[in-house]
């Protein structure tokens, strides 16, 4: 696992010290989970869900949305109508 790739995906800026530290920590977590590879799972269906539940639906009925001021209450930057974020143009 490339720690710089991981940091980029998580939009984190890491110092060189942090990179070294996290590379070691993430590495040991992955090694630990790697123990599972010792099991023979060739005969086991991959488990996507732990509960034997399927087909859970809601009907297509409109419910009240949040009032705008409530929905945007926690936004660090906003105006009357919109959330405001640093300019994103790809």
């Amino acid at each position, binding site marked *: 696992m490339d720690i710089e790739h991981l940091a980029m995906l998580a939009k984190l800026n890491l110092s060189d010290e942090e990179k070294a530290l996290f590379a070691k920590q993430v590495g040991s977590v992955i090694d630990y989970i790697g123990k599972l590879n010792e099991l023979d799972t060739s005969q086991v269906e991959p488990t*996507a*869900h732990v509960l034997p539940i*399927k087909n859970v639906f809601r*009907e297509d*009925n409109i419910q009240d949305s949040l009032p*705008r001021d409530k929905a945007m209450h926690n936004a660090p930057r906003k105006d009357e*109508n919109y959330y405001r*974020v*640093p*300019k994103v143009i790809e």
Partner: protein
Amino acid sequence: MQYEAVIGLEIHAQLLTETKIFCGCSTTFGAEPNTHSCPVCIGMPGVLPVMNRKAVEYVVRTGLATNCTISAYSRFARKNYFYPDLPKGYQISQYELPLCEQGFVVITVEGVRKKIGLTRIHLEEDAGKNIHDGAVSESLIDLNRAGVPLMEIVSEPDLRSPQEAVAFVRKLRTIVRYIEVCDGNMEQGSLRCDANISIRRPGEKELGTKTEIKNMNSFRFIEKALEYEIKRQTKVLGEGGRIVQETRLWDSARGVTESMRSKEEAHDYRYFPDPDLMPIEFEKSWVDDIRKNIDELPDARQERFITQYKLPEQDAVFLIAEKAVAEWLEQAVSLGGDPKTVSNWVQGELTRLLNEENLSVEQCLVKPKHLVEMLELIDKGTISGKIAKTVFEEMFRTGGEPRAIVEDKGLVQMSDEKGIETIVDDVLNRNADAVERYKSGEAKLVSFFVGQVMKETRGKANPKIVNELFRKKLN
């Protein structure tokens, strides 16, 4: 060097549900920004998505209408990336086990029918909208669209030209509108299209390096963008260069595709099954119920128009493209209109006027019965075919009845032979030199003479009688 284009399309279609995919917020387009959101669709911690049954049914309906296999078992996945219009930090989509797989649609280009394969159709949530207002130094985010159900239709790389690509999108648009799962509005973005395109030497089996083209929000732009991209790739290879696999944006103002220059290697979506959403298993009875709700599909209607109404294939292809237009014609025919005559009027005057006024046939004031009544007036000789165009346009503008219009405007055809003869004689006397030229072989001058009479009578003279009179008098 000649190259062959290989094109595959990804089409995103917003589903016509009342509510969002995982919550009860309304999907109505054009609401005040950020008034259709709730803790689920703005990604508050601890909330749980619950699947909208109708959204699933609409995708299955589309799959059935496009000859797909409906998966017996289907599940949802998280596609992880950070973008401000995606509140959760991941999009709920499908990766393995999509709802529908391996279908096809049939397109007709220049009279040739071709089967275009569909790889898959899956269900996902739409993102919110970013607004980059030039005057503002920040981006503005509206989350009304976040969580609107979106169906992604992926084609096989079976398309070989921009024209085929356009025909394919048109066909899918027709289908989703027929089965009423998407309004197909490309301007408002409820139907969007991206293309994967590469070129190769004819006969070559292997695919060339492809680029992905985005931002083509009309049929015209799809055609232009793909034509441009084929030229661009041909030039690069012709100069000994290599195609770079990248995403390119169509710039309609400048008529070019441009590299987005984003770090392609940055995309690493780390899909995994979404633990919050339960898998879907399709009982046969459920799929059968969905199938029962599908009315006649465009291809079947096209065949029926050819066999039942004896219309040429070209007419049928045009008429079935919009369900409402096809139904308009069927009503007129059921009221006694001759299918081919009605078809000509629909393709001619009706379409011309609708396009001029930018109206849909549903908004049109001329009803099928008006056209049929007008056609009866032509058959009885009350009005000429030429005058009928004036009558039709008047019906279109005012919604009036044809008989009333003909009477009010004094458009009744002049069939009084004596009266017409006087005018014919007059025209011949006034144009003695033209008569001489006609007699020395300029046969086409007949239409000049007829035109003069029509001018004199403001189009009301019965053309059959006028023609006969000239023939009698000149020979």
